[in-house]
């Protein structure tokens, strides 16, 4: 049964929830008895369907952070561009931020629509070897709000994994919203058959960010996702006029470096703030090609070939 059946009431807790059939919202629902008996909680058949569908996907990498606005989507997009610069590789970018999908804009794909065929939904191709899927492509207006509770978001993520015709893919990069909630649990649950290679964690230097990121790292440990490493974004700002560096987001508790030492995790790299990054993202262009000499682009290029991410590619990534 679907996580939220079509005939379910508004506050349906989801058929796989502990409260299925038992919550006050379930009164009067035609599925109440099925849910209460536990029949709906059998392992979701979609997990096996997704496992089969994704046998053509070699590597799956999640991009996570407990904190919002640290650069997950920016990193996901540019990691995808960098991986796709190798023409022999097929790259897929899946955006599971249902309420705030940034990937279409950052990839220059705003206004694109998704098509359905016999083999499923076709993702949107930004290059011949770089496919993208986001709920952004299913919305008809930039003002459309996706005001969905957890169970409905979970259903969408299931569809993205099961019904999108990804084809043969070397790397599937999954961009996530901040937090440790429905979207994150669903991605882990639905990929439990297909497997996740690991997660890249993004943070900014300050403690207000790190305190959320530590929770995300705990989440990874709990659901047994290997942490490939941590990237410290917005790490210092070099004034374009006087060239002095300012710490706009100060690493008052030692930044990502100290956190990685304490948690025994690799620090994959530090990326400085550069106004041209935001501009490139707004314009839907890769800053790796727009401003390849910028300290931020150089930092990104250093992350890819030198880091554990290169473990997943036989050749240098860029």
């Amino acid at each position, binding site marked *: 049964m679907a996580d939220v059946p079509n005939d379910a009431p508004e506050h349906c807790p989801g058929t796989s929830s502990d409260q299925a059939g038992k919550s006050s919202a379930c009164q009067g629902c035609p599925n109440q008895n099925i849910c209460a008996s536990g029949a709906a909680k059998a392992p979701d058949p979609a997990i096996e369907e997704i496992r089969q569908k994704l046998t053509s996907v070699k590597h799956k990498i999640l991009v996570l952070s407990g904190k919002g606005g640290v650069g997950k989507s920016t990193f996901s997009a540019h990691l995808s561009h960098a991986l796709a610069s190798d023409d022999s590789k097929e790259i897929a970018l899946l955006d599971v931020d249902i309420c705030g999908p940034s990937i279409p804009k950052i990839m220059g794909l705003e206004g694109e629509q998704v098509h359905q065929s016999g083999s499923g939904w076709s993702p949107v191709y930004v290059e011949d070897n770089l496919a993208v899927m986001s709920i952004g492509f299913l919305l008809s207006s930039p003002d*459309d709000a996706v005001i969905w509770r*957890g169970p409905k978001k979970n259903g969408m993520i299931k569809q993205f994994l099961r019904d999108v015709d990804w084809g043969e893919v070397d790397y599937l990069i999954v961009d996530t919203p901040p937090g440790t909630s*429905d979207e994150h649990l669903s991605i882990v649950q639905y990929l439990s058959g297909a497997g996740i290679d690991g997660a890249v964690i993004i943070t900014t230097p*300050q403690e207000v960010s790190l305190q959320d990121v530590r929770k*995300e790292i705990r989440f990874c440990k709990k659901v047994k996702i290997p942490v490939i490493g941590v990237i410290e974004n917005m790490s210092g700002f070099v*004034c374009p006029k006087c060239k002095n560096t300012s710490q*706009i987001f100060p690493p008052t508790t030692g930044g990502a470096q100290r956190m990685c030492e304490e948690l025994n995790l690799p620090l994959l790299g530090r990326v400085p703030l550069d*106004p041209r990054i935001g501009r490139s993202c707004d314009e839907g262009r890769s800053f790796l090609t727009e401003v390849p000499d910028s300290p931020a682009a150089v930092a990104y290029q250093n992350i890819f070939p030198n880091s554990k991410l290169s473990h997943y590619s036989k050749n240098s990534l860029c």
Partner: protein
Amino acid sequence: MDSSEKGSLAQVKHVVLVLSGKGGVGKSTITTELALALVHAGKKVGILDVDLCGPSIPRMLSVGKPEVHQCDAGWVPVYADPQQKLAIMSIGFLLEDSDEAVIWRGPKKTALIGQFVSDVAWGELDILLVDTPPGTSDEHLAVLENLRKHRVDGAVLVTTPQAVSTGDVRREITFCKKTAVKILGIVENMSGFVCPHCSECSNVFSKGGGEELAKLTGSVFLGSVPLDPLLTATLEEGRDFLQAFPESSTYTAISQIVNTVLSSLDA
């Protein structure tokens, strides 16, 4: 509607949500600074932090890990000051280990938020600010449903200047329209950075998007707050930025925003 129906919010004069579609734009920062400014203006203020996965308010107000007690009227909020002018409730106070992840699906989050709204003994407040996580999902719906018995005066929307942010905030504006929440105005945060060495202003996260968004959507533009390392540093340390740096342009910007919000509440 008699006061017994309103429950624990019976003596709360105004309720203002702080929203954004986008993460990391400064909702908690703006909530904290608005609260402190209001306290300095002589108001009794409450902050309800409904970001269950990433609660930032306790650190920003340096309230650490106090215990939350019960009284006859419900949970006693945590006070940031000895005079009890600033009351706070956050899941941050209920976690034994501050690194503990709250890995909850929507229905469980909805239930706790219901308790935060209905079971906290806020007492007499001039204004209750509600700090929210990014998005338009369970937390936001839960807050509005539980505040249905009590009037919600409106929402302050926070954005950064660039299009990737305003793109999400447009959706939040739609959320407000659909849920009949009045938009008190839009704040453009991280609006320009003045280099402390040479005073050159850099538009780190672009410029002007907040004001354009306000024009586009017919909303009030409350003002711009610059990117200020002194602000981020004092928040990190849980210190009162407004007391520490009253001469700064950031202080002026925040004060103007507070005055505009107060005028719209009293109107």
